């Protein structure tokens, strides 16, 4: 058996094992990550919603980056439209 063939088999075993490891908990972990991301989102936009946040000065530059997820976030939080009067996304 050539070394490249052994390498290929090794690669397949590794992929199958990884899939076997991750697949059952993929959903749970993705949901936990989303919960953390949601909290982070709240920190970034908290000042705009009237919640004082001393870190706003430092997190301001993150707002444009997270803007893309803003719509998805507020709909998931149960708000059909943007909660901010001066900040509409839909």
């Amino acid at each position, binding site marked *: 058996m050539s070394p490249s063939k052994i390498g290929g088999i090794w690669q397949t075993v590794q992929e199958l*094992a990884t899939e*076997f*490891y991750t697949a059952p*908990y993929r959903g749970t972990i993705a949901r*936990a990550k989303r919960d953390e991301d949601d909290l982070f989102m709240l920190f970034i936009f908290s000042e705009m919603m009237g919640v004082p946040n001393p870190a706003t000065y430092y997190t301001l530059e993150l707002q444009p980056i997270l803007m893309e997820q803003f719509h998805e976030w507020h709909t998931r939080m149960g708000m059909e439209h943007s909660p901010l009067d001066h900040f509409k996304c839909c």
Partner: protein
Amino acid sequence: MSAIYLAVIGLAAFAIGYFFYSKFIAERIYRLDPDFQTPSHAMEDGVDYVPTNKFVLWGHHFTSVAGAAPIIGPAIAVIWGWAPAFLWVVFGTIFFAGMHDFGAIWASVRNKARSIGALTEDVVGHRARSLFMIVIFLLLLMVNAVFATAIAKLFINFPSSVFPAWSAIAVAVVIGYLIYRKGVGLLWPSIIGVVILYVNVYLGDSMPISLSDGTFGLAANAQWILLLFFYAAIASLLPVWLLLQPRDYINGLQLFVGLGLMYCAVIFLSPTVVAPAFNENVPDGTPPLIPLLFVTIACGAVSGFHGLVSSGTTSKQLAKETDARFVGYFGAVGEGALALAAIIATTAGFATLAEWEGLYNKFGGGSLTAFVNGGANIVHGGLGLPLDFSTTLLTVMAILFAGTTMDTGVRLQRYIIQEWGNIYSIPPLTNNYVSTFIAIAACLGLAFGAGGASGAGGLTIWPLFGTTNQLLAGLTLLVVSVMLVKLSRPVWYTLVPLTFLLSMTILALLFQLWEFYAQGKWFLLFLDIVILVAAILVALEAVSAFMREKAKAAQASGPAV
């Protein structure tokens, strides 16, 4: 008679069941369509709905459904002799479990991968859904109480297993940490982790650990039960990547290693079955074979718990509808093979009939201890591993299977309590700590309520656990049957198992009701009544759903006016 015959006949029957019966079911009854767009494609989100390779999916479907239960059930049931347990496991797997697990996946896939609980509401009715939640909660309650009792008993009978079993937790946490926090590839940590686990099994023999009776005024058994629930509470609150995920993975590997070891050892050793085919000489207090056999062996013959796994996670990841046959039916076959290994270990792993009768001296007596002793004798004789090492190895495997089920069980109970908190607007119930505390308190109440202050008699609720499990299987079969009626397809293949299961469950509950009353076990009597009421309601729901669907079908095919 050599145990090889049991292994060969059993495995051959499973193979025939898979190649012929499941093919017939797939083509004629469920009529699987390779072009049907499964929810994993239609609703693919990279989180829950992910098309998955069928072998990988079978791997975790099988490892999720197989655990300590298909070992404990047969290990108790061989008290009636090997033949009844063997026949029920073989025929149960082929005609009941395969059909049930396969059917649950099919029903779910055809309904946007909804869980059997949600489907019960859609297909049968709202009342059935509420029943479903209660039955699941009772099932989890009992499985946690029974498994804690069983593990405590193993710790006491085999003190050498204490160190390796607890060290497995540390091994799992290190693997989880390395993979998620350090980004190390999976293969090396898992290989090294499994090797460390086996080294610990070897070390365990030289460092047996026993708790002494009387600490805090408690028997050693009671102390272990408390410690186990303390562990389960913490484990169920930890992030899954840290403990549960690596533990499940290691256990999955153990399951394949354990099955391989047992069957190889049986082939090399060809042990003689010392237990009688039908035990004429059962100890006093053993309940009658019919109906108790059919609830004592639930997992391994047919188990409602599989329906939860099939419809909860497996159906969301099924890449092609035709894969359901391999994943569902062959998953049930895998579990049947584990139950068969347990029957062989507990009937052929002893030198003499007297030795076997010594362990099976009361109902619930042999159980996991018989499995470990018998299995270790076979592995020692067949593969030449040292007897002490084999004993500790099998004990640790049994403990790991049961332990993982416990922390998953407590986690699921917490979810149910939190859901009740949401439904009935009781905010404290939605708190993680409060709900976990309630779950643990209920389990402890059951373990000690059933087993006395020492918790030693917790296994007396095993048949009650079996009845609840069969009731759940009945609900799933009901959903599948009603769907088949709606599609005007033959319904006998699910209706016969459903009727059989419900009648055996109700008979077993009535028998136990009388027994608990006679023995003055009021706590268990109460539990029995709750389950009996649920069983009767399921039966009534089944009849009413069928009448309704039949009437609808008759109306649809009647002459137009």
